[in-house]
């Protein structure tokens, strides 16, 4: 392991981490602007032109607020909760291919931190760990509402993980690989997986909404029943960490959806661009395209939040267990049969 390799990866990790945080910051701003647009309001417009400095002001406020740790809470777990939530949200970015290898200063640099050959399963593992932050924080608060919210979050996550895993299996039957890099490379040009797996994509997307605790599945934070949910007792930047974790989760799931189903950094006409723009700018343009897709999905998350009302808890469970899981299994069987027929003839 040479030093150049470590420095290269270190820079890449730092850049991706920075980008995730900035996107999470501006997602809060975007969310309020989108909500305002959908409800025919103006939204934040005081801090800077068009309110562009609003996230900085919010961040400053979060840091300045008094921090309260309830005396009846278990202190270390109370502190560990938000940290774990943010950590689990961030480590998902490690296996996502952000672009095809780029030529910088005579050196070809892959825009992916680690191309492990079980990339899809890694993402899945990180998603399933994400619930610990909520559960530990909710339990450590020693508050009945927080505890109920933590339990809701746990059962919701487990239920929707099954449908999510089954929808990915149908995709893997087609791709024959677990490496995200290879999955993206198979979707060259406009040959995106979503054209072959539309049902799988819809199941995956609905499950991502549930896994990130976003509306219409934000039952752990259902304020009419649970006050503030698992972060009722949290204040100051610890609360900020939980909110940040939610937005980073949104960013990562958008990136995963774009990678698995919408071709990642592939776009129609990419061969033409690659031939004319050279090995430095063409891959970077692909990265820009990937981010455009990610931003669209983040917008879609917000669009749904401000359009569809929250589900009731039994409706959520019914949809997961009686709707999505059988649908996903049927999707696997149909995919398998079609692949078998194609290989036969």
């Amino acid at each position, binding site marked *: 392991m040479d030093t150049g390799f470590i420095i290269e990866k270190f820079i890449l990790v730092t850049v991706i981490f920075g980008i995730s945080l900035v996107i999470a910051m501006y997602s809060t701003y975007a969310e309020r602007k989108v909500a305002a647009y959908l409800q025919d309001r103006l939204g934040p417009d005081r801090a800077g032109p068009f309110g562009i400095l609003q996230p900085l002001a919010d961040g400053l406020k979060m840091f300045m607020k008094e921090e309260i740790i309830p005396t009846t809470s278990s202190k270390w777990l109370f502190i560990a909760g938000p940290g774990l939530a943010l950590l689990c949200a961030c480590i998902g970015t490690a296996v996502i291919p952000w672009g095809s290898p780029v030529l910088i200063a005579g050196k070809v640099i892959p825009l992916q931190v680690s191309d*492990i*050959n079980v990339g899809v*399963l890694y993402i899945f*593992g990180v998603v399933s760990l994400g619930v*610990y932050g909520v559960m530990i924080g909710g*339990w450590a608060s020693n508050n009945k509402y927080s505890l109920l919210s*933590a*339990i809701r979050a746990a059962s919701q996550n487990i239920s929707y*993980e099954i449908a999510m895993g089954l929808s990915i299996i149908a995709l893997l039957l087609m791709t024959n690989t677990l490496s995200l890099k290879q999955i993206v490379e198979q979707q060259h040009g406009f040959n995106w997986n979503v054209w072959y797996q539309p049902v799988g994509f819809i199941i995956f997307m609905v499950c991502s909404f549930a896994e990130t605790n976003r509306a219409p599945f934000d039952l752990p934070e259902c304020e009419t029943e649970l006050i503030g949910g698992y972060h009722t007792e949290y204040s100051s930047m610890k609360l900020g960490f939980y909110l940040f974790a939610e937005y980073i989760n949104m960013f990562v799931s958008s990136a995963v959806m774009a990678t698995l189903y919408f071709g990642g950094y592939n776009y129609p006409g990419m061969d033409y661009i690659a031939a004319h723009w050279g090995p430095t700018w063409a891959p970077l343009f692909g990265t820009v395209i990937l981010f455009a897709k990610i931003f669209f999905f983040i917008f879609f998350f917000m669009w749904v939040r401000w359009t569809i009302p929250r589900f009731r808890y039994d409706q959520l469970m019914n949809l997961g267990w009686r709707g999505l899981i059988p649908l996903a299994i049927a999707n696997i069987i149909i995919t398998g049969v079609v692949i078998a027929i194609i290989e036969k003839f």
Partner: protein
Amino acid sequence: MSTQVFYFVATLSIIFSLMVIFAKNPIHSVLYLILTFFTFTVHYVLLNAQFLAVVNFIVYMGAIMVLFLFVLMLLNLNNETEPSKSPLIKIVGVIAGGCLIVTLIGSLKATAISSPLILKNQGLGLVENLGKELFGPFLLPFELSSLLLLSAMVGAVLLSKRDEVEA
């Protein structure tokens, strides 16, 4: 390098496993158990068994331990609710433990000093090779065990259903 990492992680595994037993609070116990499983995942990675590592990660840490935590949170166990055991049981426990140690040492003595097992195929733990093994020579046991799991699942659903009808 790899050996040092192994000893470091192995020490952590032992410490966390001990903490599982010594922690007073059941929730803390489960959290230490999660950490123990985490170190196991690192061990699998060191052994180049990537698939096993990631499955251990998803199934044990991501699903089973979440359920453990879930149940314990609902039960709301406290230090006070832990039943204190009578001295007789403690004495019996010590004697049984002593017998176990004698048996273990006896059986360890019988085996030779552990001879390291060298894998014929270093890449056996990778997904592709593991899949070929499971769906090739071991197809029947694999399918049988999945049937077993399915029947357990159906049984669990059936049990919860029957309760509903009676109530």
